[in-house]
């Protein structure tokens, strides 16, 4: 596991090349891929999130950590899928219709992935219908909506309403975030949760996807 410890460091330092090579070596040596995720990668991204919240990490550092984690995860994910391992939850995420701003959404997606969630990232300018259809198709647990503009906030409400119209509102939890978003707005549109930042979004997603 000494090698595996280097995976933790590589993810935290944002060194994708090392993260990948250490993962390859660990897998070749017979290390359990699930252990690489739960004992190295998730703690590394949790630590990156903690540093982000404490103003020790900023967006560049968080993005390169996420990239390193993804490099390792690309090797591990097929192995986990083959043995039927379940993620912490499945999240469909995107920036809502009319909005092309994605850095906040990308940070949340990276932190969720680092937190053990399977993330289906629909990108930007995503219609309510596409959120609903993808969540249904992928059997997601959560739908995460991002908006930077006050003008595109109504697309969040439209997505909640599209879920209601499809009779699926109880099936998926909806979490929202973005610069103009407030808890009050989340309550007004009937979202299940709001987070002010990317690290908080992981805690929120864990809470929302926990069995009742």
């Amino acid at each position, binding site marked *: 596991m000494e090698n595996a410890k280097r995976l933790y460091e590589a993810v935290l330092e*944002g060194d994708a090349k090392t993260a990948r090579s250490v993962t390859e070596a660990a897998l070749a040596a017979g290390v359990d891929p699930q252990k690489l995720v739960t004992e190295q990668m998730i703690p590394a991204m949790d630590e990156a999130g903690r540093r982000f919240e404490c103003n020790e990490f900023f967006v560049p550092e968080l993005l*390169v950590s996420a990239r390193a984690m993804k490099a390792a995860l690309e090797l591990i994910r097929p192995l986990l899928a083959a043995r039927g391992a379940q993620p912490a939850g499945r999240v469909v995420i995107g920036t809502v219709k009319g909005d*092309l701003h994605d850095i906040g959404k990308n940070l949340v997606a990276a932190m969720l992935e680092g937190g053990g969630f399977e993330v289906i990232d629909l990108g*930007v300018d995503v219609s309510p219908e596409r959120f609903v259809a993808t969540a249904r198709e992928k059997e997601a647990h959560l739908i995460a909506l991002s908006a930077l*503009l*006050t003008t595109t906030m109504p697309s969040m409400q439209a997505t909640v309403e599209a879920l209601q119209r499809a009779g699926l509102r109880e099936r998926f939890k909806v979490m929202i975030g973005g610069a*103009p978003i407030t808890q009050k707005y989340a309550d007004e549109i009937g979202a299940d949760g709001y987070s002010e930042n990317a690290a908080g979004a992981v805690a929120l997603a864990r809470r929302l996807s926990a069995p009742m």
Partner: protein
Amino acid sequence: MNSRERFFAMLDGRPVDSLVLMPITMMYAADQAGVRYGDYAADHRVLVEAQIVTAEKFDLDYVSCISDPGREAADCGAVVKFFPDQPPAIDEQQARLADKIELARLRAPDPLGGGRMHDRVRAAALFKERVGYSKVIEGWVEGPCAEAADLRGINSLMMDFIDDPAFVQDLFAFVIEMELRFARAQIEAGADIIGVGDAAASLVGPRIYEEIVWPWEKRLVDGLHALGARVRLHICGNTSRILDGMGKLGCAIVDLDLASMADGRAKMGPDQILLGNIHPVHVVKNGTPEAVTAAIAACHRECAPRFIVGAGCEVPRGTPAENMMALTRYAREHRP
């Protein structure tokens, strides 16, 4: 005193009859004039009319050419998506410098070449004609970090800071040359001050800001001073960790968004004019007139006397008129 007299007296430290009032209005201004934002961003005549309507209605001391950060990038050939009633946005999936090699081929556009930059220059000229003797005219350029993000894609730029800082330096050099040419054209057309928007700078930490971003912001500000302009710096977001550097740029006015005004005053010293910074959504849009008055009074107490009334960032669409009037009343009923 009219708005121009008040503003320049304030900048020069002379007595004024009331506080200066300079909240950023864009979509809010379009709504005041009953025009769609897509038209506001595309046609300087619509922008100028809406700015004047808004400035007169709320007794603002200035009018501004600002509309969206995509003008320079559009003229550089970036793919910009336009919407009927919201700001144009750059399509990062097709970023102009998705391939870094493209930087070597990129040529700074002519700000008088008939593109989106030229439309802004025309706005400055029309403002001069319409309100040049009563209101302050603000031109606008992007700062190095914001413009580089528009050209390269913000996600890529953030990682470039760590992966390839030499490329970032080259990109910033290109940006500064382009922005100074753009600013010169706006100043020659009639702009009194130049606003520098460097939104993405709040996303990097103090180390990257000081080592890579700040030196280029400084070159831009020095270049603007050499052109004879006063400079207003606006960095959206939480700038708490980079306040020291922002204060050392030598800008006439520094806006604060999500940072403490008291902290700004402590870090930047008593002479720096600070503008802001009540929360645009929580207070300006969602609060009551009483809450607006209380919040701006707190900012005033923390910053007096070198203080300008404004929100932390753009006044959001949907802000009640009575909340804007509360800002206006506070400014007019108080002195620095």
